[in-house]
């Protein structure tokens, strides 16, 4: 655990800065209307995650974490955003996102969620090591903000971005609270993410062939009698 290791103060400071950046990016995504910018923000979130994991790996000398940082960088910061951008072009989705709630209201709801997340994770923060105290709250807040984004967006692609942002939040929880899950589990999660992403790609094309559009309004036909 971290308590036993002498940790440089600057490392902790940078880690806290990165956590704040992650939360800021989550809010930026909530406020963003353009799909392309949304994907860029997602890529940045992945990069911040990778740097944070790398930093913890450096401070604790855990070789497994280096590997997981590299995996994050490759998958979340590079591969997935690039593929998403290409999908956007191939499917010729219009660039705007129409949200159900208006943006200021969504941001207000986001602030409420952050407060909720911090109060829920209070007992956890007290138990965690000095370095990561308070970060569990930020991680939970990032998860909930991504959740909010999924609820308030109409386009299939922006829901997927919300889904991936939620995944980022969870990943951050795992690294900040527990210094990363066991390697085998982490590999499994990465594999699932990758397969899920491929399946989504297939699914998008099915959707375009059937509806000629990526708008989720077409997916509201089933009514409960």
């Amino acid at each position, binding site marked *: 655990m971290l308590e036993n290791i002498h940790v440089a103060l600057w490392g902790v400071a940078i880690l806290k800065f990165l956590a704040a950046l992650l939360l800021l990016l989550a809010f930026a995504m909530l406020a963003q209307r353009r799909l392309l910018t949304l994907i860029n923000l997602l890529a940045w979130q992945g990069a911040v995650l990778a740097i944070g994991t790398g930093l913890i790996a450096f401070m604790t000398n855990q070789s497994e974490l280096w590997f997981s940082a590299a995996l994050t960088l490759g998958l979340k910061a590079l591969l997935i955003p690039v593929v998403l951008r290409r999908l956007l072009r191939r499917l010729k989705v219009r660039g705007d996102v129409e949200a159900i709630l208006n943006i200021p209201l969504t941001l207000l709801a986001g602030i409420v969620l952050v407060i909720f997340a911090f109060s829920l994770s209070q007992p956890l923060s007290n*138990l965690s090591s000095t370095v990561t105290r308070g970060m569990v709250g930020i991680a939970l807040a990032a998860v909930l903000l991504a959740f909010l984004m999924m609820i308030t967006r109409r386009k299939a692609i922006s829901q997927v971005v919300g889904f991936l942002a939620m995944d980022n939040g969870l990943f951050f929880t795992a690294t900040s609270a527990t210094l990363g899950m*066991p390697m*085998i589990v982490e590999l499994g999660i990465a594999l699932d993410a990758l*397969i899920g992403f491929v399946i989504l790609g297939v*699914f998008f094309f099915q959707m375009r062939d059937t509806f000629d559009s990526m708008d989720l309004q077409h997916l509201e*036909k*089933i009514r409960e009698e």
Partner: protein
Amino acid sequence: MMIYLVLACTLLGIPLLAIWGSERWGAWLFIVINALTLLAILALSARVLQSGSFTAGDDQFMVDDLNMLLVLVDGVVGLGAAFYSRSYMVHEIIHWSLTPGRMRLYHAMFQTFLSTMLLALLTNNMGILWVALEGATLSTVLLVSLFHTAEGLEAAWKYFILCGVGLAMALFGTIMLYFAAQRTLGDGADALLWTHLDAIRHQLQPQIMAIAFIFILVGYGTKVGLVPLHNWLPDAHAGGPSSVSAVLSGLLLNVALYAVLRAKVLTDGALGTIFAGRLLMGFGLLSLLVASFTMLRQRDVKRLFAYSSIEHMGIATFAFGIGSPIAIFAGLLHMIGHSLTKSSVFFSVGLSVQSVGSREIQRIHGIMKINPFLGWAFMLGVLFILGMPPSSLFLSEFLIIISTLQSQPWLIPMLLLGMGVAFAAIFPRLQAMVFGSIPQNAIRTSTIGNIPAFIQLTLVVLLCVFIPLILVQWIQHAASLLQ
């Protein structure tokens, strides 16, 4: 070794079916793979009966009485579904003009789903359990949208997003579990192994475990179909092929509930209170009531039985919530009985829909005259799912009511109300569907496709009437693992 054999049988099937799944003998290959898997499972259960629980592969895999029971059910229903799929898909391939590519996808994804179920049950690692359940979601998304209809796509999308969010919550819960375990077990892969966690469950930090359990319950509860997290379930059951609906109801819901139960044991140990049990009772009762009242309004036969699955999972969850030895015994029996019966009901429903050409309950009638075998399979299956004797669901529901009387008598009216309304929702419609005149344009579907339904229904009767002592002891021992 035996565990590896089971997993190897089922995993090797995936690439084989991905290559040859569209051939004329692809459906037979699917059956053979699942028959071999069932044989391996039988060998494994013989070993467990002889020498008790054991772990393998550096404790990464584990069998005890509890998961062995569910693995056994998995094997039987998996083989049944594979056999049924051959007869069922012949008609669907023509009706939806499915290309060879899509048939390969169908078989490979179906086998992937069956493998993830077995992996989820046999793994000892709570993290891998999560990975397997996520894999189960992913592999069934494309199965639900197999026919490329607007309805199927909508159902698949809803399924993907809702279960994805649910599983994200479960992952958060699993991370919290690891966080709690780290304080005692230290870093590394051991801290998520269930057998290790179970050994130190009294030392786990109660506050963290309470939060972890809530997230795990909400997360896996989405997959169990607990109200109010059940929205994906009726759509996914109605949108996909009936062979897929059968395994969704028969296997997936059980395995998700199994995951919740494993977490409950740890939480009970850490908290030493009835906190987790009360949560399960609440969710279970709510699911029972909401599902049975919603059933009254259903017009689509597959949606009707999808809601019935929610109802039965609610009853089982409620039983585990009560937590007395009889209740847990009944809950396990209910899970097994429901799995066997509901999958056979979906087998018959699929063939009935094919022969009538509509899923609307109003338009389905005269099944008994179209094909007596199908008619009997359908009628017996539905009567059994309603809890009529000599079905094992009768026995388990009876035991659940008895144990509720012992510990929470004031809940009896609600329990009986839910079961009664469910009966009233299905029974009158069953008569209309099975008897009556033959509708126009009705086709006679294959008789061979009914064999799995009859075999599974026979097993359900045996579980009630001639339940062997050795099996009773087995289930009792499995139940004692959950106390």
